């Protein structure tokens, strides 16, 4: 019993920071519909700022004052981010802002490194709260008790703000219907800015409050991201009581997990999330989303049509140039272009889901890495010949995608995206954990192509043929009856159903097909590198593809491929600079603001405007 109580108290204390960060995120999403991936970065700035202030301000007043000031500072940072980065892109397709927040993450990472240096900072102790109190004989750190008191206080303050003040009324109204709020004469821009700043300040507070239990380091932005999203999704996006309850559930379960299933710590919260979403598709306190996630904001999408003869000839000429690369390029350029081609195929497969299918998958790395692992496992464990492993890899990835799609397609919008993310994380942790079979994070090595493919030039041609065919097939399918059915399901589910299209089946097939193509890219990858590690399954890998698809242009057929080629190429150049993440982040933000239709879409519009290109029929 004593042990049980002590564990619950530890869990509740842990919930404190998590709740503050999560409720900020939930608030921002509820009002602005922005999935703010930079929230972890705001939390990190809060921790670093709090640390720096505590070095200067003395005593207990200084300590608690530092935490408050850190919150204010981060609120100010949030204000700037909202005004400078997000405001210009509210009119862009939904989830495009997500890419902007990604640019912000990169910028903040390098700025933090510049300002605070690489070494981990150990958080200062809270003055007067060192040591433990004994509760039923169990030692509980005094600072944990302080957190136990602070959190409900903040929660109540927020509750008061939201339910009892005029600002709260506006926020609630905006959460329900932001157009209506605008129509009633409320200045939406400032409401959005205010809410974003408030959410950021809460993240900053969370970062500063956890200092005595940890510290500040450069990895904490990504480390908090997964649990915070899990909490927000379980609680219901936009719901504060939901975030509070979910933070407590996750934290307390985690504490018990540590004691009774010590190896479960990687997966536990994702399992909880999947279970909750199975029972309550919109989280504990969430409501079904009113607005769709795709194609309903901004101008209507243009009908797609086959490429014109000019475009075809240009592409053919380009392919010939690529095919002749071994004649004029260096040995290394072959390796580089092989990588770029593989990435283009991966991005194109995601683009098919996102653009043609309107299905925003946050976990596409599961199929890319999945394909790579299927091939690697076959080679490692059954000594399968390379050719067979290569053929089975996309099949395996496609099957995984079908299984995941079968579950996830019950949901829509952000919840769908989050569920795909959770499944990708499950697969990642399975591979990470199951060392005997998958090699854990030491990966699987010595996965080399067959003798006839070993030479770099030969493998380059192999990749060129497979990747280009894959991309062309993806493009062709978009124009096939299946592609039409898929787009019908995306644009108007009810009309599609009424014309006799089984939308669920069509989407599921699309999911499997995109997974298959992602797996094909993964198979090309693993044999070009000779090894595969769990990082090919990570969230970051999924986001690599997401970013280029959005930046390339979701609403254009070539967006995925062009985005991938363009940004992979630029990354190759930037990476040679020391602060390349800063540059890359700024570039992403720039593209998001300057080209809200993506590179391809904006280029097309630009050409039309200057009359170089015929305006297409609407």
């Amino acid at each position, binding site marked *: 019993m004593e*042990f049980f109580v002590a*564990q619950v108290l*530890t869990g509740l204390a*842990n919930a404190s920071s998590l709740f503050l960060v999560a409720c900020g995120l939930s608030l921002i999403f509820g009002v602005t519909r922005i999935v703010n991936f930079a929230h972890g970065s705001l939390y990190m700035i809060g921790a670093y700022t709090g640390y720096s202030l505590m070095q200067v301000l003395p005593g207990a007043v200084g300590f608690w004052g530092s935490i408050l000031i850190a919150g204010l500072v981060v609120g100010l940072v949030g204000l700037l981010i909202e005004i400078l980065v997000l405001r210009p892109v509210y009119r862009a397709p939904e989830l495009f802002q997500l890419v902007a927040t990604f640019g912000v993450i990169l910028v903040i990472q390098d700025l933090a*490194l510049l300002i605070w240096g690489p070494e*981990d900072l150990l958080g200062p102790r809270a003055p007067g709260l060192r040591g*433990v109190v004994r509760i039923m004989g169990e*030692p509980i*750190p005094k600072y944990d008790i302080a957190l136990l008191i602070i959190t409900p206080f903040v929660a109540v303050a927020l509750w008061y703000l939201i339910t009892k003040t005029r600002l709260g009324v506006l926020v609630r109204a905006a959460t329900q219907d932001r157009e209506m709020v605008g129509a009633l004469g409320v200045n939406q821009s400032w409401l959005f800015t205010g809410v974003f700043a408030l959410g950021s300040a809460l993240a900053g507070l969370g970062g500063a409050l956890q200092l005595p*239990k*940890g510290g500040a*380091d450069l*990895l904490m932005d990504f*480390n908090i991201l997964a649990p915070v999203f899990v909490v927000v999704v379980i609680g219901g996006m936009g719901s504060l009581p939901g975030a509070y309850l979910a933070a407590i559930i996750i934290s307390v379960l*985690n*504490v018990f997990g*540590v*004691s009774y299933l010590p*190896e479960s*710590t*990687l997966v536990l919260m994702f399992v909880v999330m999947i279970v909750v979403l199975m029972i309550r598709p919109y989280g504990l306190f969430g409501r079904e989303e009113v607005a769709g996630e795709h194609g309903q904001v901004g101008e209507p999408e243009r009908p797609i049509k086959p*490429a014109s003869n000019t*475009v075809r000839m*240009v*592409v053919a000429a*380009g392919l010939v*140039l690529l095919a002749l*690369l071994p004649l004029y*390029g*260096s*040995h*290394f*350029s072959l*390796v*580089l*272009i092989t*990588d*770029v081609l593989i990435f*283009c195929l991966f991005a194109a497969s995601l683009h098919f889901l996102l653009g043609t299918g309107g299905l925003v998958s946050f976990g596409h790395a599961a199929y890319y890495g999945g394909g790579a692992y299927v091939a690697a496992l076959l080679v490692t464990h059954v000594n399968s010949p390379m050719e067979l492993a290569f053929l089975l890899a996309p099949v395996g990835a496609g099957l995984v995608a079908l299984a995941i799609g079968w579950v996830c397609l019950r949901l829509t919008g952000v919840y769908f995206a989050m569920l795909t993310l959770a499944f990708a994380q499950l697969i990642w942790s399975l591979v990470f954990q199951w*060392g005997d079979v998958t*090699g*854990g994070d*030491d*990966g699987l*090595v*010595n996965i080399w192509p067959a003798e006839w493919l070993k030479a770099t030039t030969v493998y380059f041609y192999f990749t060129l043929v497979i990747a280009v065919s894959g991309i062309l097939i993806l493009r062709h399918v978009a124009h096939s009856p299946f592609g039409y059915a898929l787009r019908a399901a995306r644009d108007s589910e009810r009309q599609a159903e009424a014309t006799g299209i089984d939308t669920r089946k069509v989407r599921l097939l699309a999911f499997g097909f995109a997974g298959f193509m992602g797996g094909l890219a993964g198979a090309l990858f693993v044999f070009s*590198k*000779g*090894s595969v*590690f769990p*990082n090919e399954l990570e969230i970051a890998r999924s986001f690599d593809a997401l970013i280029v698809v959005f930046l390339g242009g979701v609403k*254009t057929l*070539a967006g995925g491929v062009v985005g991938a*080629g*363009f940004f992979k*190429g630029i990354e*190759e*150049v930037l*990476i040679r600079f020391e602060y390349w993440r800063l540059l890359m982040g700024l570039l992403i933000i720039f593209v998001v603001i300057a080209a809200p239709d993506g590179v391809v879409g904006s280029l*097309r519009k630009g050409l039309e405007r200057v009359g170089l290109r015929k305006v297409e029929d609407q």
Partner: protein
Amino acid sequence: MKRKTFLKTLLGVATLAALPLAKVAHAEDPIIIGEINHYKRLAAFAEPYKKGIELRLKEVNAAGGVLGRPIEFVFRDDQGKPGEAIKIAEELMTSEGAVMLTGTILSNVGLAISSYAAEKGYVYLASEPLADALVWSAGNPYTFRLRASTYMQASMLAEAAAKTDAVKYATIAPNYAYGKDAVAAFKSALTKLRPDVEFVAEQWPAVFKIDAGAEVQALERAKPDAIYNVTFGPDLAKFVREGTDRGLFDGRNVYGLLSGEPEYIDPLGEEAPEGWTVTGYPWYDLDSGPEGEFVAAYQAEYDDHPRLGSLVGYMTVQSIVAALEKAGSTETEAIRAAFEDLQLATPMGEITYRSIDNQSTAGAYVGTTTVRDGRGVMVDWEYKDGADYLPSDEEVQALRPAE
């Protein structure tokens, strides 16, 4: 629609990649060594390591270089991604004119480069990665490893643990390959020395995501006599703080793998744990002999104290220079052959790259932690020669299936 843009980009990249091709080696040109590391991802570890390399390079080149040519390192950042590291390896060897590869701290990146090196026939000196697999289960003729491995360092701690009366052990290690290897090695070495010991709890926090309060409670609940810790970085700081607060370490022997290395113990400041038996690097006590000379030279050069990585970087250059001199050429096969049974003097003492498994016999310092002048240090330390903590030749041969 605009496949044009895509192709243009590809071509741009291709031209860019083709540019450095023009380099052709001349006798007076420097010998280039390709160095791949996680300069951004693990900056606190990689920077001191790089400084160690640069210090030795300066010394070597001032004394006339190697084989009559200066020696130069090309440093490249892989962001801690194995796939990226392999691409860079290829670029270094084929475009930059490197004669061999070295670097990495993370074991998985080391393993990726090692596998690639064997496939392509490049020599790779794995300076810092600790995974046992690198020289054993995934070992190959082209990969050599400098630093004392997980197995060796865990065995050193097990030897110290076996001398105490403790029988009930609990372990806490990050939930990934390094943590698993470190616990398995400690268990097997300790059980061999003391068959009566018992492992009563194993905790596996996710790396850099420790829930320290809960882990400490779980360890306390098992009531062990001694604790074996493998956590590091921010995890270690949180674990030590919660553990100290909740009295976990009172009256218990604690063994910390690598916990005495400045990279790990310095950030803890005055809250560094006291009385732990650890492997590490007591640079502050080294003032004579080759070890002291290195510390003095490093402090004179950088106005900062060396970390263990600095010493490893320094020894990396020493090893490569010794191999090049022994090889008498920069041909891969000659360098590879030269590394086998290569002997050289380092600040740690004489080391040998064993031809049986390509592991060097560099050892580690084992001592007890305490707090002095507001920071964690090791006292009563002793240098343990790595050669004494490796399995017998028969066992090693069985561990290397590739040969």
